[in-house]
């Protein structure tokens, strides 16, 4: 019997914080790849302290639904799960290369496979691209000659798009910037977007000045965050000038300083994130059959499925 345990931050204040965790758990549960899928939270119930005892598998895969390595993945989660003998060096990571470590969780006296966070997995780049596609409604966004839906894109320019990946910055966690830079570089390497840049909330280059950092008239902005909340729904839209008051909402796209901003919100809410969770578990040895392929297909926006 094989169990997947998704662990996440959760919130005492924001009811939407746990939503992506639950949604992705449901998606994976529906694939039948695991005999059970459990969720545990730092701030909600079941707590990280008690989530493992709700899992009954012989093979338990724990995947942190976090953006980066750092305080939570290296210290809080292993401590709360009671992973005996844990040390961050077991991941042998340069800050973005954590994969898996197998340790006994003393809470249940069983070995568990403790995986690296979803945010630093290479498949997260694909989720950023998927979010770009879903926020523009164009499955070929950025690919000028191949765009299937020029109406949806309605670009005033030559069809090129800029892409801003937004993170917190290093103030709280040095490694969070590493994850941003990592995916920014990978997006750049695809050659699909004219410009790809990392922007930050609390350090230079700042997301507030997004239009100054791009020549492209169309800019896709996606925060590398797990859940929507205060930062992604209030701070960033207001800081970029999409709206004076987040409660009034904003259009997608919104024109700011002659640029059209396609703001995508937290990437972790994109359905394809479930795929990254599966990738993490598969990398750790989980036998999940063709679940990855099925989730990739199933989470495509309907406009894309219709075009297949």
């Amino acid at each position, binding site marked *: 019997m094989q169990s997947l345990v998704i662990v996440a*931050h959760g*919130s*005492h*204040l*924001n*009811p939407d914080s746990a939503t992506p965790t*639950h949604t992705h758990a*449901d998606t994976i549960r529906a694939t039948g790849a695991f005999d059970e899928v459990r969720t545990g939270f*730092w*701030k*909600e*119930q*079941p*707590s990280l*302290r*008690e*989530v493992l*005892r*709700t899992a*009954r598998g012989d093979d338990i895969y724990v995947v942190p639904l976090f953006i980066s390595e*750092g*305080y*939570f993945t290296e*210290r*809080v989660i292993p*401590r709360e799960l009671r992973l005996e003998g844990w040390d961050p060096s077991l991941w042998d990571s340069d800050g973005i290369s954590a994969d898996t470590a197998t340790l006994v969780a003393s*809470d249940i006296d069983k070995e568990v496979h403790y995986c690296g966070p979803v945010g630093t997995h290479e498949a997260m780049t694909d989720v950023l691209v998927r979010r770009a596609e879903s926020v523009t409604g164009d499955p070929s966004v950025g690919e000028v000659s191949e765009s299937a839906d020029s109406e949806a894109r309605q670009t005033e320019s030559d069809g090129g798009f800029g892409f801003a990946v937004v993170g*917190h910055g290093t103030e*709280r*966690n040095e490694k969070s910037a590493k994850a941003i830079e990592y995916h920014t570089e990978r997006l750049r390497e695809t050659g699909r977007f004219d410009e790809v840049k990392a922007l930050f909330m609390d350090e230079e280059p700042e997301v507030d000045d997004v239009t100054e950092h791009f020549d492209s008239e169309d800019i896709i902005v996606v925060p590398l965050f797990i859940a929507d*909340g*205060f930062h992604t729904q209030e701070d960033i839209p207001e800081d970029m000038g999409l709206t004076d008051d987040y409660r009034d909402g904003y259009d997608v796209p919104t024109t700011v300083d002659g640029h059209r901003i396609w703001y995508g919100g937290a990437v972790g809410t994109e359905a394809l994130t479930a795929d990254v969770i599966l990738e993490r578990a598969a990398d750790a040895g989980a036998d999940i059959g063709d679940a990855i392929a099925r989730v990739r297909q199933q989470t495509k926006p309907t406009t894309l499925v219709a075009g297949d």
Partner: protein
Amino acid sequence: MSAVESDLSEIQLAAFRETLAEEPIEYDGLAAEYDADEEAYHIETPEHQTSVSADDLGTVAAEQAAYITNWYFYTQQVGSEIKRAFCRWLELAEDHPVPDRYDALAAGIDREWGQLRITTTLADDGTRRYEVRHVDDSDANTDTLTTHTDPFDARDIGTLDADGQYRPLRTAPSLDSGWLFPDLTADEVYEAVEAFYPATVVNWHREQRGELDIDHWRDEQDRQSGIYNLITVLPDEAVEWATAACCDDSQCLKRREWELSEDEPLDADGGDGVFPCREPCSMVVAAGREWAKLEREDTQTYEFELTPSEKEQLEEIVDAVADDTVDEIREADLDESANRYRVRYLREKRFDDDGNLSGTPTRPDGDDNDGANDTDDHDE
């Protein structure tokens, strides 16, 4: 007992035979074994002792059939030891033998788990079915309730209270009503309860077996890092106040089993909940952090001028907020201290333009740091 209608199905009989081919059965009042020499099945229940051939297994007395379907349900249909224990608790299995239980299950056996009312009933083949609704809806006509079939819907039902406010503590007694899971299997009722009240069944089960691991306040203090290190300086006296404030049955349905330490019990009542609380939760820790900040302040002597009624009014306002009765106060009920007009009048009369009671500055020395201005709960 009355005649049991449950004929044994071929599937049940096959499982019975296959199990007995391996080993004897002893379960819940049923003892059975297969005698290969005689090619006979010896079946013993409280009222009958029979030996039958394989062909006659399907014709055993109703009482024995009930014991066999009971065995089949619990050993072949319910997936784990915890689920078995929970389902047995739901039908009061430890208190009543199978025939009595089957009689009672015909009408339905009700149990309460937090604010859930769970009713177990019996299908003809001995399979149990479960209905879950809010205890406040016990007498509600099912037509008036919103029906759900997916046990994971319980997660969404439990997210907001009746006023649409977020419930960060799922075990708070603020579960909204008006919904119904009319027909769940054993596995599904377990998942629904797990979604409403996460980890409560597994902790209850550990407690039942005498294996509940309790982490006391001092363990919790010792474990903290980051911003929650602050709870290490929370005075023990404040932990008393905190548990009385937060862990009371009026605030959380878990029964607090943790103390200051194993040798240092807390005076506050732990509550009467059916499921235990085995360590301070993240809400208590987060609250403890705020109180640790607030308790750093020294007391100060103030002089206020109030009428006796105004002093009482302030005390009753605190009670109304603490007991969450403000919304029950009628608009024009000026007898109530926390009535909005009464409170607004008091503010007009006794507060100055800066919001100071009786014009008395909070910090006469000009220090305006209130010491508790950090509302960010995301300690990443």
